[in-house]
Every structure is written in structure tokens, then in C-alpha cells.
């Protein structure tokens, strides 16, 4: 089997991730930060170590500025719903995932103004377009770092500088880039960084988080209120991080796995991981581009994107290509719209979508060759059954 759906969930995971989760379940198991006994303290240490590893990866001074959520979607909802109020204006791009678009569209119905800045057909964004859209009531700019459809990188460094200059909060959706591409919150001037654990950070599903810059928490309302293990004498939510945004017992076993995954990323180095994926991506981009009847979308350059690639075969629906890749070649990928209708409208692939292949750390160059031969065979057989 060749697993090419790492942009949805990376799999398999490094061995240390399985070990950390198994070890936590068997040896620790308790609630973190809820009691003073040694297993509870140890569980707290596991969560804290994960925070600290992430802080190192993203160049965050204080690990307590990272709050844990169940995925990037929840983190983005905390950021977007926490900041925006009726009468505020927000700016985003036309390459976003629905984890950004849907919270923004929902707020638009409740009186928040929204500007969606158009990207090019390759998925590139002109930072000047963002600056032009800024108005006196602009509160927030939300951008994905790397597209989940074509992997294209958006100019977050330039937009970060623009946002800071205009006193507008800047939120980055790093779901596809955290662990796969260098991220430095202070260099990028990011106020809110949403990430998920289950993609290039090699953690399990159900882990993710949000970095909140010092002072920004004053204008970000929490999504949930509840028990934190702190200020237990008070019936009101604490105002300090991370407790303000971390109510209820967390996914500690998941965070144990995420911690091991981030340690793996740190030990390998983001640049080395990226170089490995880039080799496979280079083969896929060159190879797919040379197959008659295949249209590739996005930058067409492995250096300008993360390891996500979209294509179509003329005359065959993306869903049928994916089905045949699995049934005839045991290759697992993702067809359709990948939860990003606006990105497909930008690329000109709405509503049919694309076949998305996303290699990962464990994908080999030999596997890329097998994929190319499979796509070549399907394309040469011509029109499908028209599903």
C-alpha cells in the first residue's frame, strides 16, 4: 500500500510516538494539573514538555503562550470568534480552507465585515492586495501559510509586516506547514498561530493548538469556560495563559504522542525533513507534468510549496481516478474539494475538484515512480466510466 494522504493525517508515525502514547497510558494515565499526587504531576510534566518542544520549534519565548486545542480548526475558531465583534472588518485570502472560511462567513452573518483578497490561478497572493484592503475598522487578517489543496506558500512574512505596521492582528493557519516548513513567530510577526498535531508534527489526531502573543489574550475571548484546576475558589474563568483557554481534562495521551512527534521533528531538523519530501515532490511534479492528459495545479515548483500536489486527468472525474488508484494500484489519496471550495474556485477546479496526493516522511522515491506509472496507465486508457 502507498499512503499519499499525509496532508489529511500523516501516517505512519515515527516509532517514538507510539511508544510515548503507550507509555503514558500504562505508566502515567492521570489528569494533569488536577491533583498534587505524583501521577498527576507527571501527567502535567508530559503536557508541559510538549508545550516547551513546540515553543522551541516555533521560536516562542514563553511556552505558556501556547494553548492546546483538539485541532487547527478549534484553534482558528478561538482566534477568529475570540477577536471579531459586529462592526469589525476582517481580511482573508481566496486560498483558504473551510476551517477559516466558515467561521468568517458565520460571523459575516452576524455583522462582521469581510474582504476576501483574490489569489492568482497558481494560488499565489500579492501582499499589496492585503494592504489595500485594510480599513479603519480592520481588526484581523487571517491567512493560511500553505494551501491544503496545492501546497502553495502564502507571503506570511510580508503580510505580517503589513499587519503590524497598521496595528491589525495577524492570524496564521499553519495546519499544513507546522513541522514541514520553518516557522518563527517573532520573525513572521504573527499574533496568533494555529497548528494541528496530526499532520507534519507527527502527533495523533485530536491534538493541536494556538500560540497567542503576549498581551493579545486581552482581546481574545475563550470559546469555552470550565474547570482548569486553578483558581478553584472562583466561579469565573482565570485570565492567565494557558488556563484561560484550556477548560476541561485535556487529551493528555494525545499530547504525549504530539510531544514525541515534535521531538522527532526537532531531532531531524525541519530543513532535513523538507529536503527529503522535496525530492519526492520534485519527482512527482516532473513526472506528472510529463504525462499527456494530466493537468497539474499550483506553483509547479517543489521549492515554493509544501508536499501537497493536485492534478486532474482529462475526461476522468477526480473521484474515479482516486478509486482506480486504490482498487488497481493500492494507492491511497484524496479526490474532490478537500474542504476548500474557495481555493478550488481560485484554481479553476470548482466544483469537480482535483486528485490530491500528499507524500510524507515515509514516502520513498520508488513509491513515487509507482504512482507515476499508475497515473500514466489510467491516463492512457482514456475516458473513464464518467462517474
Amino acid at each position: 500500500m502507498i499512503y499519499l494522504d499525509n496532508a489529511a493525517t500523516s501516517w505512519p508515525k515515527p516509532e517514538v510516538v507510539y511508544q510515548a502514547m503507550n507509555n503514558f497510558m500504562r505508566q502515567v494515565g492521570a489528569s494533569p494539573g488536577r491533583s498534587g499526587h505524583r501521577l498527576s504531576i507527571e501527567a502535567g510534566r508530559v503536557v508541559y514538555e510538549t508545550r516547551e518542544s513546540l515553543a522551541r520549534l516555533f521560536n516562542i519565548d514563553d511556552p505558556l503562550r501556547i494553548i492546546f486545542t483538539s485541532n487547527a480548526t478549534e484553534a482558528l475558531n478561538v482566534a477568529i470568534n475570540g477577536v471579531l465583534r459586529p462592526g469589525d472588518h476582517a481580511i482573508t485570502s481566496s486560498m483558504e480552507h473551510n476551517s477559516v472560511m466558515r467561521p468568517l462567513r458565520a460571523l459575516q452573518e452576524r455583522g462582521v465585515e469581510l474582504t476576501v483578497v483574490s489569489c492568482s490561478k497558481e494560488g499565489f497572493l500579492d501582499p499589496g492586495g492585503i494592504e489595500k484592503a485594510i480599513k479603519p475598522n480592520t481588526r484581523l487578517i487571517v491567512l493560511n501559510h500553505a494551501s491544503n489543496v496545492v501546497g502553495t506558500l502564502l507571503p506570511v512574512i510580508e503580510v505580517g509586516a503589513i499587519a503590524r505596521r497598521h496595528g491589525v492582528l495577524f492570524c496564521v493557519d499553519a495546519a499544513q506547514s507546522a513541522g514541514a516548513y520553518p516557522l518563527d513567530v517573532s520573525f513572521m510577526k504573527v499574533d496568533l498561530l494555529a497548528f494541528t498535531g496530526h499532520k507534519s508534527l507527527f502527533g495523533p489526531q485530536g491534538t493541536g493548538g494556538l500560540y497567542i502573543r503576549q498581551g493579545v489574550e486581552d482581546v481574545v475571548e475563550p470559546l469555552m469556560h470550565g474547570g482548569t484546576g486553578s483558581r478553584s475558589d472562583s466561579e469565573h474563568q482565570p485570565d492567565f495563559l494557558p488556563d484561560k483557554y484550556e477548560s476541561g481534562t485535556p487529551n493528555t495521551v494525545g499530547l504525549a504522542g504530539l510531544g514525541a512527534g515534535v521531538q522527532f521533528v526537532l531531532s531531524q531538523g525541519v530543513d532535513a525533513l523538507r529536503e527529503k519530501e522535496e525530492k519526492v515532490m520534485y519527482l512527482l511534479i516532473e513526472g506528472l507534468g510529463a504525462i499527456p492528459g494530466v493537468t497539474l495545479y499550483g506553483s509547479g515548483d517543489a521549492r515554493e510549496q509544501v508536499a501537497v500536489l493536485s492534478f486532474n486527468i482529462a475526461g476522468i472525474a477526480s473521484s474515479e481516478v482516486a478509486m482506480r488508484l486504490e482498487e488497481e494500484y493500492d494507492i491511497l489519496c484524496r479526490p474532490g474539494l478537500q474542504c476548500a471550495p474557495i481555493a478550488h474556485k481560485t484554481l479553476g477546479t470548482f466544483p469537480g475538484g482535483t486528485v490530491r496526493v500528499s507524500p510524507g516522511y515515509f514516502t520513498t522515491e520508488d513509491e513515487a515512480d509507482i504512482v507515476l506509472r499508475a497515473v500514466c496507465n489510467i491516463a492512457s486508457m482514456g475516458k473513464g466510466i464518467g462517474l
Partner: protein
Amino acid sequence: MVLFHSISGALRAEKLLKAEGVPLKMIPVPRHLSSDCGICIRFERADELKVEGILGRSKLEIQGIHQI
């Protein structure tokens, strides 16, 4: 002993102090001190200035240092 607003804060302090070689123990907060969180760090009185210095430099907010 030093008390914190959150367990996460106490755990961060534990690592910082351990890295500087301060002997310490994480213990449940004595009820009469009624902390914001359930655990605190007990250390030797002789290390008080060192502890204050390390935590001060880290900008980690503490609830207070108490003698027991």
C-alpha cells in the same frame, strides 16, 4: 515554598529551577495557604534569593513565596 497561579506555571518553574541545580520538591499546596493551583514548589530557605532571581528573569508570574 513558592506558589503559582497555574500548574503549567509551576511546571515551568520546576524545569527552570532544576536546570540551575536548585534542590526542590513539588508538593500539594497546604490548605491554609489556599493557592490558585493544587501544587507548589518546596525549596530550602537558603536558596530563596536564587529562586527569586531565576523566576524573576523568566518573567514567570508567581503568587508568592511563603515560609513553612
